[in-house]
């Protein structure tokens, strides 16, 4: 990999990523969105993040892609704590604590 290709990648990825983030905010701006669209947009967080996480939990890269008891239990713990207590910090700590504990004993 050459210096040139590294710089091209950095600059193109930087500009492209900004344009992706700016897209709707920039182009639609203050225009009112139709009801059906805002109804769909309300589900963006629960539509994107679970799908982003699921493969990382089921096929973790660190284990070469094979399912891993510690990581599965950690994910379930974080989900349960987050869902029940609404505490983000509690969910992160709880999940990582379970991960380290199970990893230690297996």
């Amino acid at each position, binding site marked *: *990999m050459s210096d040139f*290709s*590294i*710089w*091209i*990648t950095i600059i*193109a*990825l930087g*500009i*492209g*990523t*900004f344009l*992706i*983030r*700016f*897209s*709707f*905010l*920039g182009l639609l*701006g203050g*225009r009112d*969105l139709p009801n*059906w*669209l*805002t*109804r*769909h*947009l*309300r*589900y*963006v*967080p*629960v*539509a*994107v*993040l*679970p*799908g*982003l996480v*699921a*493969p990382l*939990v*089921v*096929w*973790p890269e*660190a284990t070469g892609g094979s399912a891993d008891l510690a*990581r599965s239990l*950690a*994910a379930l713990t*974080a989900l349960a704590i*987050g*869902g029940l207590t609404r505490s*983000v*910090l509690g*969910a*992160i700590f709880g*999940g*990582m604590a379970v*991960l380290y504990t199970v*990893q230690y004993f297996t």
Partner: protein
Amino acid sequence: MGRAYWQGFRAGVPFVLVVAPFGLLFGVVATEAGLDIVQTMAMTVLVIAGASQFAALQLLSDNAPTFVAILTGLAVNMRMAMYSASLTPHLGKASLGKRALVAYFLVDQSYAISVAEFEKAPARPLPEKLVYFFGSVSPIAPLWYGFTYVGAVAGKAIPPEYALDFAVPITFIAIVAPALRSLPQISAAFVSVSVALVLAWLPYNSGLMIAALLAMITGAAIEKRLEAKA
């Protein structure tokens, strides 16, 4: 005004726990792959999207063509177009400059924190929403830059026992779990997970995009049904 900033700031603080090690890891991996400090920092500051940086770096180290590395990185970030659309009803009336600044700082964490708050209190005036957003990213972005630098300078591999690979999934679960309150939301999350797993083999993260769109349609359709019944 100051209050809204600090509310956002406090909501962002827990993510420091994840962003710091993730930044450290990127710094280490980037220098190990052969980037110098200036290149590593340029990437982290210009792109400010960890997953895509790792993906592009991986492909460059595997000697993939440059355009493949760029396109893959961009594909990983396509979800942010949906974040951008989802924030438009709340922040779309801000000035162009402020919207550009929001766009630059639109990362998974600042998005999830802010959208949760805006949905809870949609009537908040625009300036308060803006400072809340910038408050939420204030503890996150500087640490992302700073720890990338530390990782690039220290340049020592982090032992695998720390399982830092899993800090990121855990945070996303922690962000989204409290939002899973109603039938439409739970159904959307379920569709998102199932479709993403079934289509995980598709290239360029496109399985995730399809999963997200189907999940949004599911959530909205069930919400509409429930409303019609009520």
